[in-house]
């Protein structure tokens, strides 16, 4: 029984990371139909931002303050990735609306360049980020130990999810965003600047990627290619969950994260991945456009 609980916890932990990454993707994809392959590199930017903040703290702040660097790193990562995303949208993405496959290729190119940039700035080897002392150890329940780091990431995801929910469903900018998502032409007719909504939405998606990168530093060392490791899984979350609603992404992340952990536990790491893929394809037979699909009368969407 304990084993199952532990595996389930691991699964939720994996899901939470996937969710954090896929959250930004599902928004950009759902709203703009843009496949941002550079999302992984935005994660990488967030991770390196955390690394830089840590180094700054180590150099310029008293040692007693060091533990708090992480609290600063999260918003800073968000802002840095937000700015990168804004520049990316204004410089490239806006030329690619209506051409999702082309956006995929172009952003892949951007990703390659960003990776190389990171390699020349920080060096090719992985760098470690020392996690703050207050996240060491774990919560003991019965015989199981739940590491604080993992719990912290789960909490972080819940906070992000809640804030996203407030933004999308309970704020004016969020309402405009949903309006553009549901019917772009009509939204434009009613005076919404779809250009600006697109730019801000893309930047927010990128910013969340930055937070995801920051969270990844807690799990292990970071390198220039850290994003590519997660990006395909994150896209699978979007495919499985469907676009347009937060709940779909949550479902997709939980589905993939938990099934991945369980299958890998029951079989081997490589076979587990195959089984998860087969399950996803099987699921898509039942619901071809994912768990939740935006209803629309348009035939080609």
């Amino acid at each position, binding site marked *: 029984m304990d084993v199952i609980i532990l595996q389930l916890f691991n699964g939720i932990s994996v899901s939470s990371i996937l969710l954090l990454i896929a959250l930004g993707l599902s928004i950009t*994809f759902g709203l703009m*139909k843009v*496949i941002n392959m550079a999302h992984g590199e935005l994660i990488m930017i967030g991770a390196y931002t955390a690394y830089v903040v840590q180094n700054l703290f180590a150099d310029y702040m008293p040692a007693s303050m060091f533990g708090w660097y992480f609290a600063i790193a999260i918003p800073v990562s968000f802002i840095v990735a937000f700015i990168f995303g804004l520049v990316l949208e204004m410089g*490239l993405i806006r*030329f*690619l609306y*209506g*051409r*999702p*496959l*082309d*956006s*995929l*290729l*172009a952003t*892949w*190119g*951007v*990703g*390659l*360049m960003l*990776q*190389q940039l990171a*390699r*020349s700035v920080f060096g090719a080897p992985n760098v470690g980020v020392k996690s703050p002392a207050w996240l060491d150890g774990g919560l003991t329940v019965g015989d199981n130990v739940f590491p604080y780091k993992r719990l912290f990431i789960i909490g972080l995801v819940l906070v992000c999810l809640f804030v996203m929910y407030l933004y999308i469903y309970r704020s004016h900018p969020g309402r405009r965003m949903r309006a553009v998502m549901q019917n772009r032409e009509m939204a434009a007719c009613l005076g919404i600047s779809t250009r600006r909504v697109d730019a801000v939405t893309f930047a927010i998606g990128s910013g969340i990627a930055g937070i995801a990168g920051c969270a990844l530093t807690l799990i292990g060392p970071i390198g220039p290619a850290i994003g*590519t490791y997660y990006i*395909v899984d994150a*896209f*699978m979350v*979007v*495919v499985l969950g469907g676009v347009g609603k937060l709940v779909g992404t949550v479902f997709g992340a939980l589905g993939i994260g938990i099934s991945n952990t369980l299958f890998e536990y029951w079989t*081997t*790491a*490589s*076979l587990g*991945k*195959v089984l998860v*893929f087969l399950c*996803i*394809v099987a699921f*898509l*037979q039942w619901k*071809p*456009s994912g768990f939740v699909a935006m209803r629309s009368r348009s*035939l*080609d969407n």
Partner: protein
Amino acid sequence: MPIRKLSAQRLWLLAAYVAAAAVLFCAPLVLSDFRLNLLAKFLAYAIVALGLDLIWGYTGILSLGHGVFFGLGGYAMAMYLKMQASGGKLPDFMDWSGLTKLPWFWKPFEFLPFAIAAGILLPAILALILGYFTFRNRIRGVYFTILTQALVIITTTLFIGQQAYTGGTNGLTGYSKLFGYSLGSPETKRWLYWVTVAALIGAYLLCRVLVKSRFGKVLRAIRDGENRVRFIGYNPAIYQMVAFAFSAALAGLAGMLFVLHVGIISPSMMGIVPSIEMVLWVAIGGRGTLVGAVLGAVLLNYAKSTFSESYPNIWIVFMGALFVVVVVFLPKGAAGLFGQLKRLRRRRASNEGADGVRYPAV
């Protein structure tokens, strides 16, 4: 089909093709063994590009999974060669992994015809299965693309994970003989080169016939308006499946030739990055034109082998920039550039605002 009159332009075009084929066949006379081997490798890549162009340029389905099909072909040939090299004994890497008996699925690869058939049919069957479960449900566009990319990930992890059966990260290498001829000798290499040229020309002609046929017309119609095709009464899924499977078979063929030239196949050659590089060849050469795909594959790989050894870092940045530039400014690639210029000149001459066929938003 009515016999078309050969206009002067068509004659010139035909002459150019024949000349190109002749140059390719005569290349061994002037090129060093090393260069010839490189060229042979590029020509094998060009076969993948042809297949990819068929599915992407003509049918509008972007596959980022052709590395897998290429790799399957490569592994099929490599398994045969490995069996030859071990001469009835257990292949060396199985020995290291603690296997004592040859796995059952390795056994038939002792025979070359089986290996060749498997190298072409396995990728095609895999593509058919994936195509059946996706196209039938109208899963298309980016969703399909993401699924193919996931296919790449799981295949590479599977191949790396099953070290005892696939050679793991190292892949399969260390073979020496084909039909009892040494693979390293210049004589054999030259023959293999000619085989590759013949395969490329054959693949090209086959693709051309396919594209010009009624089947090809339906493919293009699917690209430009899948639902309209459906309403006319065609079943797009069947056409997409067949095109995808054929394209995968070409990639498998290329993979087999690749192994013969390079002498190794490993999971890193079928991973995410090689798969997307294949797409870049087609994008640069020009999707929707067969010649463009071939030229794109050869030229880009030539550039890569020239620059990437001396400046690997710059090459990556260059490749990234190339993706961006081609997609944003040259959606039809280099081959489309000529068309664009021609149209521009014609428009200037006739001073009318008509523009040509816009590439559809795929």
